């Protein structure tokens, strides 16, 4: 049973990590296609997303 739960958790986690990697990849592809690096606004948006996630988690 513990193994089943562990695999489930791993899949959940893998899903979250994959979604994050997809988001990062999309940003980098867009920047590369425009022949530029990521902008400060894009970085600020990521920081804002992280901060929102942190704030939600800390409210527990």
């Amino acid at each position, binding site marked *: 049973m513990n193994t089943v739960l562990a695999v489930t958790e791993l899949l959940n*986690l893998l899903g979250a990590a994959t979604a994050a*990697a997809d988001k*990062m990849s999309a940003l980098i*592809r867009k920047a*590369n296609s425009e022949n530029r690096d*990521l902008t*400060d606004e894009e*970085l600020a948006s990521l920081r804002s997303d992280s901060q929102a*996630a942190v704030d939600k*988690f800390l409210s527990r």
Partner: protein
Amino acid sequence: MDKSVFGGLVRHVLTILGGGLISAGYITAEELSTAAGAIIALLGVAWSVFTKVKGAKQLPAVFIVPVLCLGLSGCGHFEKPVTPKQKYAAAETQFAALVGYLDDLAERGKLKGDDLFNTQSAVVAVNNTLKLWKTAVQENDEAKIEQYRLTVIGALADMERIYTEVKQRK
């Protein structure tokens, strides 16, 4: 050795190492304090889960996260972050995913009590380091960028190492 003694030892080691970095002009005392706090908080979580795993034989799912975070750049499917801004972006997206995952665990009641508190403390510490990392990226300060990148990844790597050791003993 209990958790407070372990934390004290880590702090002493970091103070000694950090003192050298301050003397060499690589970091300020404030930055050392932030970085040391992040590392100690993460190791505190690792220690807490480690001691529980030994007794309860539960899978410390939170330790799997670092493996995924560290392995990310090796996944061919994804764009590999190359520039300092891209590497920072990769860390931010993975961090947000990690926090979202931890929040989900807490929502489902699988992360609670001391584990929840310690994890929240670790998240705050890494979050603060990421803020400093972002500033360093925008200021194009290569030394600080590397310092903060290593702080975050190193803390996660230590957690992953302990998790691997625990698995190998079982």
